[in-house]
């Protein structure tokens, strides 16, 4: 698993180019966004369910990653066009997916954490009937100007 930050400006540019209004794109750019890559380098299929992942920053309760459905409701309220919403949906990391050996995927995950605030991400996957987890510690989003 690999995370790479997508800067606020990259997020703005990406979604405005897909038909988001500046205001709607700004809403997403406020999040701490990471390009998230998961690759199955093992010999058995693995599954994940993003709803089981949690991120936590100091003195805060664990948070779930906002679901695509929740984003969809928000974009509809903001009047984002269907073609833009489709692009958004498929640009996010899949909510759940099974990866055969050799499979991989990438997509965006967004965390409601202020810039420069450290947080940990606990990610969970299933393989061979067992649940596994790992923690990425002390993640942070660089500031806009970094």
């Amino acid at each position, binding site marked *: 698993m690999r995370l790479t930050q997508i800067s606020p400006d990259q997020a703005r540019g990406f979604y405005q180019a897909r038909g988001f209004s500046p205001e709607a794109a700004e809403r997403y750019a406020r999040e701490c966004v990471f390009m998230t890559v998961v690759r199955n380098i093992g010999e058995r299929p693995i599954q994940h369910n993003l709803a089981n992942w949690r991120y936590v920053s100091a003195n805060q309760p664990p948070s779930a990653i906002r679901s695509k459905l929740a984003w969809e409701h928000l974009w509809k309220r903001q009047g984002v066009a269907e073609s833009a919403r489709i692009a958004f949906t498929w640009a996010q990391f899949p909510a759940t997916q099974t990866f055969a050996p050799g499979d991989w995927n990438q997509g965006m995950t967004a965390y409601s954490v202020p810039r420069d605030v450290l947080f940990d991400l606990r990610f969970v996957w299933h393989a061979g009937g067992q649940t596994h987890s790992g923690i990425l510690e002390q993640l942070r989003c660089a500031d806009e100007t*970094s």
Partner: protein
Amino acid sequence: MKLRKHVVGAVLAMCCALGPAAVAHAADLPPLSHSLSLQTPKSAPALKFKDIDGKTIDLAQLKGKVVLVNFWATWCPPCRREMPSMERLSQTFKGKPFVVLAVNVGENADTIEAFSSQLDITLTFPILLDTRSQGMRAWKVAGLPTTFLVDKQGRIVASAIGGREFDHPEIVRAVRGLLGK
């Protein structure tokens, strides 16, 4: 897993020290795979869309041919990277009963042509327009790119999630095997 966590941590540390642009070069390009996941053959869902030239393409009309169905979008980095190798695979089997169908999700012909004109290779296979992502839902695609190999009987026999080098010998061999059946 522990070692990998440290690697990720190192990448993230670089991200924060050097800024996102510096990391983009190192981390934006995960290697393309070349594996196919064989599946118990099952009937492929319907797939019928217009291509970018306005011609209707129906998978049901392609029985008797081996078909590679690839779901993609121009904004999807691994989709863009695997596209030339898909054309090379198509050329490898030129004149054989083999068809590549690239199903674009949610974009229009102008956007697709703007992308394909940037490639060093001309795409000769049909690019279908799944403007409302109905095809993706029918095929239970969870993310882009996702590719299916359909045999001459119209059955899905293999799939691949994530970018691939489609002209890798392993994939060429799989297609050749299906053509021989």
